[in-house]
């Protein structure tokens, strides 16, 4: 573990998660009784087709949306028991978020974007000065810390976003399609970074993606279909993204797997 960059991640468990949305006159179940555990310190990829519920699973895990049934436990805390304010503060301190669209505040510099959760928490920036310095160094953007987002490339912006996600030493980092707005080379670089950070810090990292090239970096893949957990499998047996993709296609196209039937 690289000192100062973070500490071990906490367990994240989703139990019996159900989430319904109204679309016109119909009700759609984006998640149906989904139960999954993201192992502490592991890098997990969540895959599924469009509309499979993978993003909803991530949103629920991040506390960005409330489940209709079931619960989410992050580092031992049941998010469903928290008020909006408490949940916000919990998310600020214990959950790091990385978005597809980077979502940096355009009027703040890179450094200010990174320290935003700390300052919002009422703490002085000096309390995390060392950590910020190390994050910038580790992410290779120290020379860009004074620039605003509109002066940064896509890859640099995503690195700043990752730094922001890590600055409060969260229990879990949740990334929603973190390479979706990047070219393949930059995307691979980001994936390597996430993998390394996960390994170095023992932090729990969950990435939602539809790209096998991203999922192959994970330790494990969780597959969703029609709002249910279809199956989970380790990635170590797959030599590359193509192999993983082929297996993924088999899984998704095949009959109902045991995991799905069980849930």
């Amino acid at each position, binding site marked *: 573990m690289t000192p100062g960059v973070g500490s071990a991640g906490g367990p994240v468990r989703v139990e019996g998660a159900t989430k319904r949305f109204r679309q016109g006159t119909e009700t759609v179940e984006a998640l149906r009784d989904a139960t999954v555990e993201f192992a502490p310190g592991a890098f997990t990829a969540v895959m599924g087709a469009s509309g499979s519920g993978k*993003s909803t699973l991530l*949103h629920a895990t*991040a506390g*960005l*949306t409330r489940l209709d049934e079931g619960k989410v436990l992050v580092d031992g805390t049941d998010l469903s028991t928290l008020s*909006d*304010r408490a949940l*916000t*503060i919990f*998310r*600020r*301190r214990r959950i790091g*978020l990385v*978005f*597809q*669209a980077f*979502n*940096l*505040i*355009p*009027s*703040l510099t890179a450094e*200010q974007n990174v320290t*935003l*959760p700390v*300052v*919002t*928490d*009422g703490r002085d920036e000096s309390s995390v000065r060392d950590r910020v310095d190390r994050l910038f160094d580790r992410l290779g953007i120290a020379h860009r810390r004074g620039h605003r*987002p*509109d002066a940064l490339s896509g890859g640099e912006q995503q690195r700043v976003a990752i730094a*922001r996600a890590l600055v409060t030493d969260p229990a879990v980092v949740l990334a*929603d399609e973190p390479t979706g707005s990047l070219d393949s080379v930059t995307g691979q670089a980001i994936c390597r970074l996430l993998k390394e950070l996960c390994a170095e810090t023992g932090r729990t990292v969950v990435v939602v993606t539809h790209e096998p090239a991203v999922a192959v970096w994970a330790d494990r893949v969780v597959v969703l279909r029609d709002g249910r957990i279809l199956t989970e499998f380790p990635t170590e047996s797959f030599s590359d993204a193509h192999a993983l993709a082929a297996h993924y296609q088999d899984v998704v196209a095949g009959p109902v797997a045991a995991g799905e039937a069980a849930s």
Partner: protein
Amino acid sequence: MKSLIRLLLADVKHRPARTALTSLAVILSSCVVVWVVSGYDALMGQSIDENAAKALGRFDLVVAAGGGPPGQGIGRGANAAAKGAGGPAAKGERPDAPAGKAGGRPGGRGGPGGGPGGGPGGGVLPPPLIASLREDARVAEANVTSQSRVSVGVVDPDPERTLLRHDRPPVLGMPPLDPPLIGSDAHEAPYELEDGRWFDPALPADGAREGVLSAEYAKNLEAKVGADLEVNSEIGRFVVRLVGIVEQPGGGGRGGGSGQAGLFVPPALAEAINGYPTRAGRVNVVLKEGADVSAFVKELEERLKSRNSSATVTDLQALKEGMAQVLSQMGTSTLAYSATGVALLAALFIIFTTLSMGVSERGRELAVLRAVGLTRGQVAGMVFLEGLFLALLGWLGGLTAGWGLLRVVAAAKPDLFPQGAALGFWCVALTAVAAVGGALAASIQPAWRATRVAPLDAMGPTPVAPPSRWVVPAAAAGLALIAINPLIAFVLPMEATARAWAYAGLGCPAMAIGFLLLAPLVVQVVEKVAGPAVATLLGLQPRMLGSILSANLWRTLGATIALTIGLGLYISTQTWGYSMLAPFTPGDWAPDMLVGFEPSGLPDDQVPAVKAVPGVIPGRVLAMAVEQPQVVGKAAGTGGGAGGTIGKLDNVVVVGVDVDLAFGGDDPMIPLTYVHGDRDSALAKLKQGRGIIIPDHVLESSGLKLGDPLELVAPDGPPGATVSYPIVGAVSLPGWHWMTKMTGLRRRAVRTGALTFAPVADVRRDFHVDRTNFVWLDAQPGASADAIEKAMQAIAEAHGVAAFQAPGVGEVVSKRPYARLTATETVRTGIASRADAMIWGMSQIPLVTLLITSLAVVDAVASSVRSRRWELGVLRAVGATRWGLVRLILAESILIAVVVLALGFGFGVMAGWCGSGMSRYLSPFGGMNTPLVIPWARLWLGVGSALVLCLLAAIQPAVAAGRAEPLSLLKAGRAAA
């Protein structure tokens, strides 16, 4: 808090133009308040400190006679000096009678209405009081003055110019437009001599005729020392040599608490001009060196009180108090508060627009902030902080700019600010209220919206706002709220005070909120209806304007409402003003010209001579007998409106006419519109015996009904003798107030409760009117009023009665009878020009507000362009020209202008209509029905200004967008998304 401040400062640095525009608008709003309030402060300070001393002149105190009961103390055919002291008393009246309704407090200190000018009705100081003042060991001088009404002008050598206004005695009932005639026995000028010298008070009337004029009057008449002045009284024409000009004391208001100003002449000359012995109405007192003024005043007041005297004593302190009260009554403080209120609203909506646009533009940013851990409270705090920041910037900038403006004006025009220009406490306080209060109020809704942004919104593309389902229900609620005010003003039965409270506390706020709720629907309707038309006009595809306003409804609303404040207030001022004017403008009922024959009328056998005057339509001459009797009995004192005695039925002007000629036939000379009763039954009753026709609002406000009697007392009749005139009809008589005021119909000079009509024979008999004293006539088209008046004058001179009995005075010999012609059109023109000036004065703040709030439109259009950069980039990429983009942005601005026009017109007309309707209950004239008058020709200024401002607001954003390269638009837009 630190994080919020950081976010705020970063955003300000990131969007400097928006901050600058909003701050500038708030600065200008604050500037308006600084200017108005400082002007009020200067006026108050200046008038009270300096003018109080000026008003007293060289005297230490003034003792003035109080007024008698209304309707008395006035001589027929004699100059009644209604506003001045020293007029003739009615028969049997004690000169120092106890104060009536219009007089000052007995033995009380002078103040407005009870001060040195004396009360209405012409009170007189008793000789023993004057003698005791002169004999008092502490008194160095007791200067006795009398005051009466005359016409004064510079003698014109051109003999043809004989019909100028100053060639006629003053009209009874008119305020003294001419300088009053002041008989003074002072050996020195009462005020500082600016030119020339004072006269010898012992000069006999048949000696040198000398006078001294107050400075402003001299300026108005363009009279210089050495000029000959022509003085016309009721009894004749006199030439007086102007030997001096004195400083004119500042007006502390009408009726009292002010110094004397006019044409000063020796007492003997005043008597000769008036035609009767002068009676003292005022004594100006100088105390000897070392005498205690306050003690003297106190002792004198006690003495007067013990004698139950209506005389008042005024010293410097009392004058100051009176002036302060009058200034307050003038509404200058109201103006200051009104300006503050308007500025508050303007600042509120400007800041609302900016904050609202900020929330809309930064939707994703807010979602990200929520996602990374800002609570709802912190997000709301961000918005409030931004609002407060904009307000403080604007407030401080406004104070600085306002102070600078005052300094510049004070340097250029020092007489406007004799005590220098400074920001007073109230100025600073009111601008703070306007800016900060407006900001806080404006922040509420945007802050609430910001807290509604879900952190989940950060995860996907910028969500498209769903169609607003609340627009129609909100509009329905808005219409219901708008309906409340007209119900209060016109429909619901209510006592006047409760109605006034309901109007101010419920009706007006409900109406304002109602239009706010209606605004979103108006935006959508304008977009749908006017959008295609504007698109066609500018050569655009209609579908491009399909949701140009409603795509960001809050932004559009903020800008349009900000502008609507100014336009709505302007239209409401114009509508209210001209609606209020309507009942005071003589209607079609009044024949073309009214001729009064003074002092004693014409014999009946001369009426044919009047008919034969060239230009007069012979068959359209109505010989009348007019008197102004007192009303007694049940009806007495009823009617009128808010405040005091105005409009109360204490007396009426009764016009005795040939009822057939006046009201009968297919083309009556006085075509009346009956509101209660009808012409046929009224005519029939009038022919049977005594009957009277009165104005409709007088009937309604007094609680009288058709058939109820008016008990009238002839001014010169035996005491207690009344005659009963049953009411046979109530008619719409717009403008009757001004007709009586400007024509001499008010025979007894005081205000009257109604203009009424009765059969001429009854009026002559009951009120002892022996001759025709007025004639109403219709003239040939193109006939010259001057020529007709000249002919009437010849008739008057040939047949006027020289000697007549003036009550309380005895026989008065008139040296020159006269005929006064007043054309109805002249009355209308005179009223209209005064009203135009007044209404224009009231419209200026709304127009300034319109100008200031146009900055909100600049902000809104700029924001709209910013949020649509990607879309504009795509349009350019697929082939739209630069000019096409410019037209698109101009189209949005034009549509904003149309929304503003619709809302502003609706609000303005409704507010003006309801305001004028409330005048029936709040106006001192009471009960006047005010029709809705929309002065279309005058609305163009506000409407045109709004349209031009909207177009100007769009120019910079449109040009900037048109000049940008397509790629930069695409990139900038994508980054924002």
